[in-house]
C-alpha cells in the first residue's frame, strides 16, 4: 500500500474520446484492408482523462506478436488482440515513455529493415565474405534481378 496504485480508490472521469478513438481504429483497419493505407494515431495527441489510456490499452489487449528494439532506449511493439492493430511504445534511455502510438498496418515501420542500412549490409557482407575467401577471389557485390535491376532499388520501390 505504499504506492498510489495500491490505494483501492479510482476516480472516474471521461473525455468521451475513448469510444471515438476505438471507432477510428476500426475505420483505419477498414482503410488498410480496402486500400492498403496504413494509419498511425498518437495517443498523446488525443485529449484523454486519467485512466482512459489504460482503458484503451485494456480493450486492445495483447496478441501473439511482441518485439523489443533497443535503439536510444527500449521500444516495444505489440500486436493487439486485433490483427493489424499494433501498440508501439517508445522509451528514452532512462526508461521514461516518450511516445505511444497505435499503428494500423501490416507491419509497423520501425520493425521493417531499413533500405539504407540494407545497402550497407550488402556491402559489408561482400567485404567480409571476400576476406574469408582470400584476396584472390573477387565476387559481385550487387545482386541483380532478372531484368538487371539493382535488387535494393526494387525493394525500395516496393
Amino acid at each position: 500500500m505504499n504506492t498510489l496504485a495500491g490505494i483501492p480508490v479510482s476516480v472516474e472521469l471521461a473525455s468521451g474520446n475513448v469510444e471515438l478513438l476505438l471507432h477510428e481504429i476500426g475505420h483505419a483497419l477498414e482503410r488498410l484492408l480496402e486500400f492498403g493505407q496504413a494509419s498511425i494515431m498518437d495517443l498523446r495527441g488525443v485529449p484523454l482523462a486519467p485512466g482512459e489510456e489504460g482503458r484503451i490499452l485494456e480493450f486492445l489487449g495483447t496478441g501473439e506478436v511482441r518485439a523489443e528494439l533497443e535503439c536510444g532506449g527500449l521500444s516495444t511493439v505489440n500486436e493487439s488482440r486485433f490483427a493489424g492493430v499494433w501498440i508501439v511504445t517508445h522509451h528514452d534511455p532512462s526508461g521514461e515513455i516518450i511516445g505511444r502510438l497505435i499503428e494500423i498496418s501490416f507491419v509497423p515501420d520501425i520493425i521493417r529493415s531499413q533500405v539504407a542500412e540494407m545497402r550497407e549490409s550488402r556491402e559489408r557482407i561482400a567485404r567480409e565474405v571476400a576476406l574469408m575467401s582470400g584476396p584472390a577471389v573477387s565476387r559481385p557485390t550487387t545482386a541483380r534481378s532478372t531484368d538487371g535491376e539493382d535488387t535494393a532499388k526494387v525493394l525500395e520501390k516496393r
Partner: protein
Amino acid sequence: MRDVLVGDYLRSRGLTRRGLLKFCAAAASWMALPPTLAQEIAAALEKARRPSVIWLPFQECTGCTESITRADSSTLESLIFEAISLDYQHTLQAAAGEAAEEARRRAMQDNWGKYLVVVDGSIPLGNPGYSTIAGVSNADMLREVAEGAGMPLAPGRDEAIDERCGRIFAEMNRHPAVLPGAGDLLARLDAAGIPWAIATSSRREQVAASVDALRLTRAPLIVDGTHVAHAKPAPDLLLLTASHLNADPASCWYVGDATWDMLACIAAGMPAIGVTTGAVDAAALLAAGATRVVASLAEIAV
C-alpha cells in the same frame, strides 16, 4: 563539418535509422504534428546539412544551458545537438568577448536567410538597458538577428502550435483566481445597462476556466482570436468587438493589463484603461498608450 549531411553524421555516431525514426516519431508528437510525418521528418533530417544556429540567451536563469551542457550521458538529443552548428551562444562564449559577437555577425552573413534563432529568456521592453549584450539591448539584438533567420512554417503549423499551447494552458489553468474587483465591475456594468464583452487573442475554450471562475449570471459575449486574421496588437479584435456591441470604437473603454492591449487600443482608436495587475507597470502601460492607469479594477467607477 558543416557540409556533412546530418544523416551521415548520425550514422557515423552509431545511430541506426530505427533510432532516428523513433526520435522523429517522438518529435512529431512533441510538435503536435501527425505521427505519419515521422518518416518524412527523418528523410528531411537525413538529407539536411548542419544548420547554423544562433542561440540568444536573454534574461534567463542559465539552467537550460547548464542542463544541456552538463548532461552526463550521450543522448540522442545530444547527437542531434552536435549535428547542428551552434555558431553563437554568448553564455558559453562569454570569455571570448567581442570575438563572440564577431562570430555571430559572420554566421549571420554566411547563412543569411537560412540560419535558425533560438531565444531563451525574457526581454525587457520598458527599460532596454536592464539587459544588454556587448552594449546591445536584447530587443535590438533580437530584431537584428531575426531579420536574417529563415524557416517558414508549413501551412497550418501555426494553428497546430496555437491549439496545442491552448490545450496545455487549459490543462494547467484548472483553478484560476479571479482578479479582485472583476466580478463586481461586470455586475455594476450590467446593472447600469452598459454593454460589455471579452476580447481575447486566445481561443474561447482556452479562457473557459477563467470565465467560469467569474461566476457570471449570464453568458458573456466573447470575441476571440479565431474570429480575426490578426491578434493584438493589431486592432482587428477590438474593432470586431465594438461592432458586435453596436458601438463606435471611440466611445468604448478597453480594460487591459498588457502593453499589447494598449497598442491595439491606439490602433483601433479606442480609449484604454491600463491595470497594473499584469506583468508590466504603470509607466510601461502609459508609454504604450494607456489613457488612464489604475492599480485595481475596483478603482473603475461606473
